[in-house]
């Protein structure tokens, strides 16, 4: 029998090093994910979002900000696939550029809220004692608050604007991650592998960062993906109310506000950005559900 190449070893699930083991595990996840058409659809949508955002200036046929008052409120046509808005701007191009805002919002919120919640939860669960009790009480209290209203109130306090909106959403979004990280930390706190590392003299900080947190990753990934759908909706709501992204930004929520104004004269102004929000949201939901079935079947939604 000839020796297997590294690629073959990973594919067949016969790793010979810890790095190969990680790849093998990732491959299993990909395989299981690929078996579900819904999850694949979600993945496709998210991938499309990334691509559109990356290549927006190339893909969009017109400049999203250039006004053309002679061309106001034109219905969809070959020239303007989604029609034009009240300033004569091409809605199709604006929708495509809107992907950049969506991606920006989603990434920033993820980068701020998730690690914070993760670290607090993992430390809380691992350290136990009064630290745990304190953080848990605070998190429970924070979880009982209405997220959208609180985000709105925060944005009012900070002043309208895209970055303030992101901060507000992130500030209301960390509790679920604390819960997840703490649950995982509690489970592995007493395990032998952690005890072994402790015996080798690892500091508690190191254990939390290097050992506990990586084990929380699967649940966290699922929660993150599902959360992104909610974040998009909240951000769009903020933009719609004029408290998030501001006109003339090509953010989808802002475009929906125009849609409301032009309801009777141009149904296309609000319809297409809304479809975009809906599609992206659905994509994250599908992907998140798929990931949950694969990575963490016991997690409740």
């Amino acid at each position: 029998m000839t020796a297997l190449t590294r690629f073959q070893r990973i594919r067949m699930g016969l790793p010979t090093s810890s790095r190969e083991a990680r790849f093998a595990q990732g491959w299993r996840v990909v395989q299981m994910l690929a078996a579900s058409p819904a999850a694949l659809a979600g993945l496709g949508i998210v991938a499309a979002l990334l691509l559109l955002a990356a290549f927006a200036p190339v893909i969009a046929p017109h400049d999203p900000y250039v006004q053309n008052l002679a061309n106001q409120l034109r219905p969809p046509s070959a020239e303007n696939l989604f029609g034009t808005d009240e300033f004569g701007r091409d809605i199709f191009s604006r929708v495509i550029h809107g992907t950049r805002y969506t991606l920006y919002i989603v990434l920033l919120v993820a980068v701020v809220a998730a690690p914070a919640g993760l670290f607090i939860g993992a430390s809380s669960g691992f350290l136990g004692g009064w630290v745990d009790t304190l953080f848990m009480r605070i998190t429970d209290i924070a979880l009982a608050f209405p997220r959208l209203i609180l985000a709105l109130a925060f944005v009012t306090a900070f002043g309208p604007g895209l970055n303030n909106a992101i901060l507000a959403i992130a500030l209301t979004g960390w509790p679920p991650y604390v819960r997840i990280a703490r649950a995982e930390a509690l489970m592995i706190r007493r395990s032998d592998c952690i005890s072994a590392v402790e015996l080798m003299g690892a500091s508690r900080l190191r254990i939390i960062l290097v050992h506990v947190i990586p084990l929380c990753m699967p649940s966290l990934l699922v929660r993150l993906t599902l959360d992104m759908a909610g974040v998009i909706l909240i951000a769009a709501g903020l933009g719609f109310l004029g408290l998030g992204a501001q006109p003339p930004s090509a953010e989808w929520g802002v475009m929906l506000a125009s849609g409301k104004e032009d309801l009777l004269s141009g149904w296309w102004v609000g319809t297409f950005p809304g479809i975009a929000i809906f599609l992206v949201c659905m994509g994250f939901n599908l992907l998140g559900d798929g990931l949950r079935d694969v990575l963490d079947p016991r997690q409740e939604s």
Partner: protein
Amino acid sequence: MTQGTGLVMGILGKVAIIFATFLGLIFVTFMIGRVMPLDPVTAAVGPDVSQELYDRTREQMGLNQPLWIQFFDYVAAVLRLDFGTSFSTRQTVIDDIARVFPATLELALVGVVIGALIGIPLGILAAVKRGTMVDGLIRVILLIGYSAPVFWKGLILLVVFYAILGVAEGPGRMSVFFEGVVPIRTGLLLIDSALAGEWEVFRNAIGHIILPAVSLGYGAAAYVGRMTRSFVLDQLKQEYVSVARVKGLSEWAVIFHHVLPNCAVQLVTTVALTFGLLLEGAVLTETVFAWPGLGQYMTRAMFNADMNAVPGGTSVIGAIFVSLNVVSDILYRMLDPRTRQ
């Protein structure tokens, strides 16, 4: 520790947590009010005043006190339901809220009823026919429900049913024609007009509420339906369901007599929580439909950076939210025989 003491400690502990939650909420709204970009003194007396008037007003408003004393005063005021005076309407915030809240309450109630009436049966059906096309179709319908923004659903519904088809009424709660016709008893237009026997107004009110309520209701149905499906599937895996089948019960008899009673508690909790979510959703939907409720009030207050109205409204909605959580918890304990004593 005797069982009695343990029980009392348990209840005290829960009460303490509820209390801490409300306190936390008030703290957050207090900080929001203090961090606002608008200068409250200027908002009260205007921009062009003498330094002396400015300082005096500032002292009057208690703003030169250290922060923790201000917080203490604020908590005391909130307990008296005194949220200050709104800068835009010049009325006390609590009067404003009392005036606008019934409209939102009515909308959220109708929305949650629609959501439950559609969501629960769909969820049950999807669970029973799991894996089939019916299940897939229902799951897609539900997925659309919670992936689409509620205000966009409202816009689409307005365009289709009001602008194009003309079967529903437009924005607002009722036609101007009927203003003042119906005496206000509960604040809920549908009930008040029915009680007064004013059926034309009733029909008009329905025509107005139907679109925003369906916008909210679809989202509610999606959430409730998803949860229902999950609950029913969990129960169908249980042994007692097999045993019930062995007894000779038909599949639907098993669902109605055995599975649903076991899901009842969770369903009630879910519907209560959904009501809270709809109150939140109303803030966005009311803007689309010019619905004169708390949502529109809050949106205007936010635009004006109204330092009293925004924390006040947030506190009220937040308090309702927290109370719904608490009530659900209590209902859960009361209705599940396993946790009864």
